């Protein structure tokens, strides 16, 4: 599964996305737990970020659908 990165997360990772391997029936929480292992530099930011599934904020208990568009959404600062 490909996880899109934005703003400071993208700069820290040096990439616009991270590839994550997760078992079937994995949740958003499982994804959240795997990100710091794959990219320790974003660990602190992951804790404070939301995760979006198909352009909607998702709770950690949400099951990840196959072929979903997934993104790490750090605290926003538009306006």
């Amino acid at each position, binding site marked *: 599964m490909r996880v899109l990165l*934005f*703003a*400071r997360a993208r700069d820290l990772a040096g990439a616009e996305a991270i590839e994550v391997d997760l078992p079937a029936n994995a949740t958003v929480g499982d994804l959240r737990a795997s990100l710091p292992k794959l990219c320790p530099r974003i660990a602190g930011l992951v804790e*404070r970020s939301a995760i979006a599934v198909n*352009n909607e904020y998702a709770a950690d208990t949400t099951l990840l659908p196959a072929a979903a568009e997934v993104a790490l959404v750090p605290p*926003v600062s538009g*306006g």
Partner: protein
Amino acid sequence: MVRLTREAIDHTRLTEDVRRDHCGAVVTFLGTVRDLTGDRTTLALDYEAYPDMALKKLEEIEQDTRSRWPVGDIILEHRLGHLDVGDISVAVAVSCPHRHQAFDACRHAIDRLKEFVPIWKKENWADGTTEWVHPGT
């Protein structure tokens, strides 16, 4: 209507576009790039969005605002890219029959936008450093 743009925001056109004959009140909010944050000097801001989700969330704010007030029309527009001090980063224009409705609707829309629309700004400080703004981090 909601828009993301890389061009300068034409707030006069935006304000004209929401005017309606049955609306006696038009409120336009502009967010502009400020030169000071605390005692630090900003030279410029870079804005980026998660575009598809940002547009979806802006549309939700439009619908939510329309459901709460008798909105004649509403436009939410956010600029992306490199903005200098004084540039307009965001505009919300709302028309309603009466002024208290228009003020409240406009404030609601900009407050929600700042709360959850996936857009980020990067400070370009006068000392040459840059910093993404992620409140609470």
